[in-house]
């Protein structure tokens, strides 16, 4: 009897576990639509969507150049740092450092670095470079390890590490490195844009202002510019132009950069817990309210948001992948499918969340849906492209039967790999979306920065990093349990 209700396969058990957990989260979490009359706002948004407008050309070019420069310099720095660290990736210490660097969202790095450097280019490019170094080190190390394993049997016993690297590894890994680094550059453009939300003069600065003022026509115009940048990146972002771009970006940003060594001392003092800075104050009376009023509620809401968003993203990914799979539809539907998925996954979650928050009011719902749309589109895109590798018999089933019995079962494992890789990303973004005013960790982190309590902010950032590291290892355990590949499949778009 029980066998009929509880699926016996490992995959079935894991998936129903995740589904059940999401359901529990949905019931106990703060999820409602609070807007009584959202119609007017929605109409204004729709009107703005149909009549895009642009700010003055001068400001726009400035914002675009800033965004691109941060992304370029940030990713270039991260590529160098990531490459060097990837050579030492067999050391546990290096792996732990890299995991911690990437566990903190670039916007949180930005908030912290603003305190150190103020509003200037160093803040922006380091906010991208630091977490990306952690990401790139891991990916580079995995790519190299894979190549090494492939070539090991064919190498002579006495072969120096250096010649092995240059004659066997490098020729094979360089295209993968290049692809992944370019993909990171695209992510860097997204990160550079949203760094505008905390005050750096990138596209996000104008985007947030336009949103805040309800000028949806400007929002649409700016988003179109942003999509344009991302969509044409393969044309203008090629590596052969990079040396030129990097020089230009450095020349462009250099005059604004400055650094005062005393600020390091100031920052260290500010992030030291307040009771340690003053005499006669007890650590516990300072620490417990932070835990009970900020840390625990923040963690709980982040977890609830992340778990529901993960399951919804997966479901959405399964629904969306046929849109661009060669096994379904015709060239026209595939082309529109591709375009809509590009738009859905290019839009940063922060921006989606912002729009949904205006429509539905504050609860975890806007964050959950924003995360599900963004990540669902990514999973759908990757799965759809993966499905193109499948060869079907000419007389195989069509339509729904083809979807349910031919394609979906065959892509299931790869689909799960994509999904579980998004788990950590989704959790990191769940914490971040608190900046919009939903009570995930980001809300409390932002509040702490706003009242210049950097010690509190640091504790909360560390908590969110630990959460992400935990989710990352949980993801690995689940993948191992399901016998899924444990290495990242490189996401190329």
């Amino acid at each position, binding site marked *: 009897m029980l066998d009929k209700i509880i699926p016996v396969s490992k995959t079935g058990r894991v998936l129903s576990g995740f589904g059940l957990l999401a359901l529990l989260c949905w019931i106990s979490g703060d999820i409602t639509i*609070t807007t009584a009359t959202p119609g007017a706002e929605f109409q204004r948004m729709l009107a703005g969507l149909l009549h895009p407008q642009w700010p003055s050309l001068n400001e726009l070019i400035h914002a675009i150049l800033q965004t691109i420069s941060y992304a370029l310099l940030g990713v270039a720095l991260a590529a160098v740092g990531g490459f060097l660290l990837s050579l030492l990736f067999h050391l546990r210490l290096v792996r732990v450092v890299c995991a911690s660097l990437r566990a903190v969202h670039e916007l949180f790095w930005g908030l912290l670095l603003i305190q150190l450097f103020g509003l*200037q280019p160093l803040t922006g490019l380091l906010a991208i470079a630091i977490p990306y170094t952690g990401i790139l080190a891991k990916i580079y190390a995995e790519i190299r390890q894979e190549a090494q394993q492939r070539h090991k049997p064919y190498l002579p016993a006495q072969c120096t590490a250096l010649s092995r690297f240059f004659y066997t590894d490098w020729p094979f890994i360089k295209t993968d490195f290049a692809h992944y680094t370019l993909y990171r550059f695209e992510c860097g453009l997204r990160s550079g844009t949203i760094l505008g*939300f905390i*005050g750096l003069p990138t596209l996000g600065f104008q985007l947030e*202002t336009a949103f*805040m*003022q*309800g000028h949806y026509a400007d929002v649409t115009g700016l988003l179109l510019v942003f999509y344009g940048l991302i969509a044409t990146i393969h044309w203008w972002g090629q590596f052969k132009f990079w040396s030129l771009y990097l020089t230009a970006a450095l020349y462009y940003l250099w005059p604004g950069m400055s650094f*005062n060594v005393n600020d390091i001392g100031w920052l260290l003092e500010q992030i030291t817990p307040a009771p340690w800075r003053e005499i006669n104050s007890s650590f516990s009376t300072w620490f417990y309210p932070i835990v009970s009023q900020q840390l625990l509620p923040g963690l709980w809401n982040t977890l609830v948001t992340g778990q529901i968003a993960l399951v919804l993203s997966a479901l959405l990914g399964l629904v969306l992948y046929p849109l661009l799979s060669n096994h379904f539809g015709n060239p026209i539907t595939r082309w529109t499918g591709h375009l809509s998925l590009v738009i859905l996954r290019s839009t940063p979650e922060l921006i989606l969340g912002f729009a949904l928050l205006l429509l539905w009011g504050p609860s975890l719902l806007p964050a959950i849906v924003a995360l599900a749309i963004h990540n669902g589109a990514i999973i759908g895109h990757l799965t759809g492209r993966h499905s193109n590798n499948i060869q079907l018999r000419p007389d195989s089933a069509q339509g729904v039967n083809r979807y349910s019995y031919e394609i979906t079962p065959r892509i299931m494992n790869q689909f799960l790999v994509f999904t579980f890789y998004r788990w950590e990303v989704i959790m990191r973004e769940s914490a971040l979306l608190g900046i919009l005013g939903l009570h995930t960790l980001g809300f409390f982190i932002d509040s702490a920065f706003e009242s210049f309590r950097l010690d509190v902010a640091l504790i909360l950032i560390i908590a969110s990093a630990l959460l992400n590291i935990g989710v990352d290892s949980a993801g690995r355990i689940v993948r191992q349990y399901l016998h899924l590949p444990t290495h990242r499949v490189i996401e190329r778009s």
Partner: protein
Amino acid sequence: MPRILIILALTFSISTFSLAQSFVFTAIPDNDETRLIQRFSKVADYLSEKLDVEVKYIPVKSYPAAVTAFRHKQVQLAWFGGLTGVQARRLTPGATAIAQGYEDKKFKSYFIAHSSANLTKSEQLPQALFGKTMIFGSKSSTSGRLMPELFLRRQLQVTPDEIFSRIGFSGNHSRTIALVQSGAYQVGAVNYQVWEQELAEGKIDRSKVDIFWITPEYPDYHWTVRGDLDRQWGKGFTKKLRRALLELKDPELLAAFPRSSFIPASDNDYDLLEVSAKAIGLLD
């Protein structure tokens, strides 16, 4: 394409380079944050003429960003809200308040409510607020957060967390009005100037959202300067700057803030705000 980019980059880098040497100020107006550069570059031109140095305006996203830029010397003069001015001076030794808006001596906030909340105009904050949803402005806004929260605590004797079923922070006053008007929140606290202006512009439908309580008066927005101006631009520079601000009479320039004129101010005009912020735990 790359060539165009380089030329563009060169042009802009030259313009940013000069920024490093010039006198820089920032201002976040209490409403309409768009086209800031156009609006405030006229103020920069005015100051530049009066002070005989190059003056630049940089737009800043939020109050904490403005305070940080001020502390890092990236901005020498800032138009801060009441509380953020206090924060900036606490973090930047030597900084002082030099002028405030004419309206800022007697500033006030409006408590507004969506029609479905059934709150009518009253002398005191009504008990009916218990269980409602509430939206403040920016987390460190004086008129959108600090003073409204202070009066709530004083009159109802409990913290906002205990009064309201849900509390949000809109980020700015126009947003607060929009969110209460749409019914996303039942109650909001808003800068009275922004309300009056949006009312005049026809953006407010009073059958949907209206005022139910007005706070007592308190001091708010003011100009704060860094303490090291005279060292960098010569003795008496701060005085000259203060005079230039007080003598600013052009209505077009004043409209950017928007204020009718600027009047003298000093640090202890804002002691009340500092005490209040400490009382509600916004400052240590």
